């Protein structure tokens, strides 16, 4: 019996199992947690982190880093609002936002892959540059949305579930498929495992990396649009520090920073764990300062558990 149990908890899907147990416990113990409204609120609160985590997973799996995501999200949100306002067409605004996000990501990718500049530094630089652009373009102030239709992006519902949650679910699905079932996904993992060997095996490493960053930018564009719609304005200071939340969620989900290891299921669980932690702390009315400590401890515990699991199976 215990052997059986151990196998389940420590197996491939161990993190998922742990998560389910934790979820059940929280549902029982925390009042107001397991209600429709709270669940929807919880899911909506992880939309930005979750969307960006999809591609951050690729980035980390390829042994890279992207610190610029927060800035791109804010910038794309600004662009979406300003372009919509200026052109009077929401569609144009959305396209412009996604184009801008993708462009920044593309530039990141080119600088990193072609000029071989460390990804951490490159994205640290673009993080500042893009944040600067967002601030300059609006003179540091939030920009309101003229057309109320824009809010509908975030407010509209399908089958009782808000659109942003659908978008998140669809992206989870797409990127899970891309990671495991496409050449691009496999190449990404191979690059993370051994970039030089992958290159010699005919993988176009530079192009793959550029694609990864461009995709990251694209996805940040989507996240930026949904965020702007949710907060009904473009805010140059939005999503500060997003990069660390996203990276934490990925690592919690078992993505290895040393590259070569990633799974969509893990990332989803990582994102949810982070969201639930925030949600429960607020439900339990934990004082702001203690939230810091709780957040840190949860992070540690989660990786520690995952580690026990891996080392029980002899892998590092």
């Amino acid at each position: 019996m215990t052997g059986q149990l151990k196998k389940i908890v420590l197996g491939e899907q161990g993190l998922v199992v742990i998560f389910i147990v934790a979820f059940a416990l929280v549902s029982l113990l925390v009042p107001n947690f397991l209600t429709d409204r709270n669940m929807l609120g919880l899911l909506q609160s992880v939309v930005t982190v979750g969307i960006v985590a999809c591609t951050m997973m690729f980035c980390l799996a390829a042994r890279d880093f992207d610190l610029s995501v927060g800035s791109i999200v804010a910038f794309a949100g600004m662009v979406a609002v300003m372009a919509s306002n200026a052109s009077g067409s929401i569609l144009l605004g959305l396209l412009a936002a996604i184009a801008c996000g993708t462009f920044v990501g593309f530039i990141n990718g080119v600088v990193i892959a072609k000029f071989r500049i460390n990804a951490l530094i490159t994205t640290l630089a673009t993080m500042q540059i893009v944040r600067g652009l967002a601030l300059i373009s609006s003179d540091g102030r939030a920009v309101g949305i003229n057309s109320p239709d824009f809010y509908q992006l975030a407010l509209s519902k399908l089958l009782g579930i808000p659109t942003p949650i659908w978008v998140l679910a669809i992206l989870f699905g797409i990127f899970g498929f891309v990671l495991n079932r496409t050449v691009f996904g496999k190449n990404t993992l191979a690059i993370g495992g051994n970039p030089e060997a992958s290159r010699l095996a005919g993988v176009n490493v530079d192009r793959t990396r550029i694609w990864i960053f461009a995709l990251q930018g694209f996805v940040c564009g989507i996240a930026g649009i949904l965020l702007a719609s949710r907060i009904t304005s473009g805010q140059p200071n939005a999503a500060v520090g997003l990069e660390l939340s996203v990276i934490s969620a990925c690592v919690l989900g078992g993505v290895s920073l040393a590259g070569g290891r990633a799974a969509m299921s893990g990332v989803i669980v990582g994102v949810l764990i982070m969201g639930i932690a925030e949600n429960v702390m607020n439900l339990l009315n934990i004082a702001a300062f203690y939230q810091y400590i709780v957040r840190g401890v949860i992070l540690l515990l989660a990786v520690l558990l995952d580690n026990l699991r891996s080392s029980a199976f002899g892998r590092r």
Partner: protein
Amino acid sequence: MSFLEFSNVTKTYPGVRALSDVSFGVEKGAVHGLMGENGAGKSTLIKILSGDQHADTGEITIDGKVQAYTSTRDAFDNGVIVIHQELQLVPELTVAENLSLGRFPASAGVIARGRMLEDVGAKLKSAGIDIDMRRKVKTLSIGERQMVEIAKAIMLDARVIALDEPTSSLSSRESEILFALIDRLRGEGKVIIYVSHRLDEVFRLCDSLTVLRDGKLAAHHQSLKDVTRDQIVAEMVGREISDIWGFRPRKAREARLKVDNLSGARLRTPASFEARAGEIVGFFGLIGAGRSELMRLVFGADPRSGGTITVDGKTIAAASPHDAIRAGIVLCSEDRKHDGIIQGRSIEENINISSRRHHTRFGVLNRASEIATAETFIKKLKVRTPSRKQDIVNLSGGNQQKVILGRWLSEQDIRVLIVDEPTRGIDIGAKSEIYELLYQLAEEGMAIVVVSSELPEVMGICDRILVMCGGRISAELARDQFAEKAILAAALPDKKTPDAIAS
């Protein structure tokens, strides 16, 4: 009881029983050979001896004392030095620092640099190893690195020295230096364990021999006097292999690969050669001769500064391996750890990484064909593994090499197959099978280039040999001109008498 005694050593990895109940002893002042197929458990045994891994059951005694190491450090302190199969050097540190790592001469934590250089210099000199100890290891070639690795054995006053395939990337000249060193250590009364796949080395060096098979003790010879090669091969592989080369004459057809005045940063003198369909061309040379550099240029792995490459009459760009593969050139590189295996990924993925493009549609994988390809080559190359899903780093060295070969053999429409030290670390049985495969591929019309530092190998399987020396091609010999002396003479930069180093 012998000086060094293994008793009932057993070790299991998830899904693999690497060693079961292995017992044997080695006397002082003896060189003890350890042989066996790839994955037989040789390295595992050495790792247990070094304190890197722990046996599930069984124990090791030295001089009557049971050894219970908790770390590699304990093993050092008990006079055990191990040269691992995979190079274990720190690229950013100098040779001297690498050799002193873990035991720097220091006072109050401050390194006594003078003393360090003196110690290392003296030891290197006495061992006849000629490497500038102030150079950073990252600037050394693989062979040079291997020599540095070997030099570790003499850095400490060890009682037991184990060498895991130390000659796999050495050419005959360096090998001789190593053999002299081993003879000296034997004279000093050390116990030496010597792992190798090369029978002649074993006969040249070893006093006694243990053969492992599937993790079990297959044979133990106290003396090698009355033992024959065939007997050992049979003990290892379980069948007789009469002629491991099994050379079959072939007919070379039209020229497939033409290399004209190719040059690059590390190959200053432009090189030209050609390889014909159905032909196996050998490249021989000493370490640093520039063979690997030349092949990397052909494959587009390094940027070239001049020259043209033609395949089947078509000039190709080959600006990157990606292009080269699509033009029909593949290269199986010599440095499997750095350039070959993709750590953390399964055997299946390691095999399919390049050839999968033939089976995909819109970038979506064809799972069935990936699995089939993986299974085919695991079987064909006899990769010892519990499953195709095994992480490649968990394979033995030779089995990793087979997987990398599988990666390239699974490619379609190869016109030119370049293999750089293809049988490095591969056991005799598998070697002959790989040769057989190369013959088949050649007969199918591929042009095959084999780079090897093993003279018998190039002489045994090639139709033509090109000799390189100091970064240029110094001789070309057809099969009927093959002669050890002539080849070595062309390979030697200083035109010393080849007899001195011919093995």
